[in-house]
């Protein structure tokens, strides 16, 4: 009996260690690299460590610029995708549109094919209209591709809001316009936030499109990371990778804290 319990305990510990290793293991490597000044095989930890590359990020223009550029692009993409997706999603959720299924599939298209050929072709088209090598080209493709997430997420959100909540407002003297802004939109905020976070993170991490359309004139953070790693500058790549994790973690905390299901739980009754 006792033996059995010890064995079980050991098994649990082993399982936890394994999970931790899978999740945290790669992270440890990245963290070590970001602080390494000299690290040659076969040493397990870097021979010389320091914060030099971290300082570089905040002093040397190129790295900091790429992060700021990514933030800027992602923010604009979020705004654009919400402005386009929210009305479209409202239409999909409330009205019987002709070709509704077809239109929804159209929004899926940019994600339905391998990214590489799509972005190469887009880059070729954009080049003719001088949309390559600048921020707006990237914003354009990011917005287009991210509409997949935002339209589908927001459509689902609007559909989850009972129509009777709107009808009650219509009955009590509100116009359709007023009803949308006082009732529907506030109730859809959790879905809008979820969509915004998703789009933001996707844009922050997107590489292929940013690479083909932006490079070599402008570099977003993922592209910067890639070129640094290609040039064996693992330290810079690691620092950028760690910094890119910050928004993801921050948003996870926000979702965990504020997007409680009970907020929507009161819907309908």
């Amino acid at each position, binding site marked *: 009996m006792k033996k059995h319990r010890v064995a079980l305990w050991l098994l649990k510990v082993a399982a936890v260690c394994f999970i931790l290793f899978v999740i945290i293991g790669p992270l440890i490597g990245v963290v070590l690299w970001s602080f390494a000044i000299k690290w040659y095989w076969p040493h397990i930890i870097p021979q010389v460590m320091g914060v030099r590359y971290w300082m570089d990020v905040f002093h040397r223009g190129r790295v900091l610029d790429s992060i700021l550029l990514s933030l800027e692009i992602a923010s604009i993409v979020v705004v654009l995708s919400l402005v386009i997706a929210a009305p479209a999603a409202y239409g999909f959720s409330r009205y019987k549109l002709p070709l509704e299924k077809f239109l929804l599939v159209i929004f899926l298209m940019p994600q339905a094919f391998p990214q590489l050929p799509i972005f190469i072709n887009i880059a070729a088209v954009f080049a003719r209209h001088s949309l390559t090598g600048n921020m707006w080209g990237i914003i354009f493709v990011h917005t287009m591709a991210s509409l997949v997430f935002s339209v589908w997420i927001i459509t689902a959100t609007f559909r989850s809001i009972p129509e009777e909540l709107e009808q009650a407002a219509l*009955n*009590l003297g509100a*116009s359709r316009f007023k009803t949308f802004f006082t009732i529907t939109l506030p109730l859809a905020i959790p879905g809008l936030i979820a969509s915004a976070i998703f789009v933001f993170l996707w844009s922050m991490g997107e590489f292929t499109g940013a690479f083909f359309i932006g490079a070599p004139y402008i570099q977003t953070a993922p592209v910067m990371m890639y070129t640094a790693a290609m040039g064996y500058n693992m330290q810079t790549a690691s620092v950028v990778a760690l910094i890119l994790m910050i928004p993801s973690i921050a948003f996870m905390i926000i979702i965990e804290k504020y997007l409680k299901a009970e907020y929507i739980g009161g819907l309908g009754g």
Partner: protein
Amino acid sequence: MVKVTLQEVTKRFGKTTAVNRISVEIEKGEFIVLLGPSGCGKTTLLRCISGLEKVTEGRILFNEGDVTNLPPKDRNISMVFQNYAVWPHLKVKDNIGFPLKIKKKPTQEIETKVKWASEMLGITELLDRYPHQLSGGQRQRVAVARAIVMEPEVLLMDEPLSNLDALLRVKMRSEIKKLQESLKVTTIYVTHDQVEAMTMGDRIAVLKDGKLQQIGGSNEIYHKPTNLFVAGFIGSPQMNFINVEVKEEENILIVATSGLEIPLPPAIPIKKSEYILGIRPEDIHIKELPNSTRVTGEIYFVEALRSDTVLHVNTDFGKLVVKIPGDFDAKEGENISLYIDNSKIHLFEKESELSIL
């Protein structure tokens, strides 16, 4: 207060006709109940009056004004929904105050009115809560307060009590009725519950398959149903129906089937021979009374409710359900003599299902 007039109102969804040429005049301050089984078109009719559905044909008048094509917001009506439809992102006071805020009333007036409405419904201490902190009954009160706060011309209620538990339903029934009486607002109330209809409505409109079957006070609906459907739908337990023939014997018309012969009062217009006899369970007695017809049968099942007792009796002409007051300790399988009150029988034409007595 307005008088609501429906003229031949028809609503079609594609090929199905949900509401079929309904004409009703609802008086100022009247409490009218639209009653019928699910799918009879009662909710659709209510939504046509509210403006949430466009009528296909016919007209709706408030007093003399034609509102048939007005959007809901211009009709000065308010509606209480079955599942309350209180807005989860607004506090109770903002829910109630919404109709006034939309009309851009001054803050002072909104506050006074919200206070008044919440006092009417007894929810003053809930004003700062959110709907998810309320019980179902409290949410329903918020929905009613929100509906009366702007003192609408017409109050529409779509099965407002059907999501509440039985005890609360009985309580809210009287409260809503009293509230309506004190506000004197013309009220149209939809329900499938005949008890709600009988207890609350000044008049009841019985609907089936989108058609108006009968409209009248509870007394009229119960004692003088115009057809087989109304007779069977109103009353619990249901009216007994027996297939009979009408014959003439010694210059008296009688209805007859095996084991049953009941004389009919004179001057009944009889044309054919096949009829359906209707008799309510409480019009069959276990003690002999004058002008009654004796039948015998075997007790098949006893529902001892103690306030009254419902007997299911097998007779030669089929099953009879009998309701007698108080305790009656009968054993299943026993034989029993029953007395049908001859003056209380109903007679329906078998083909047209219309009442002739």
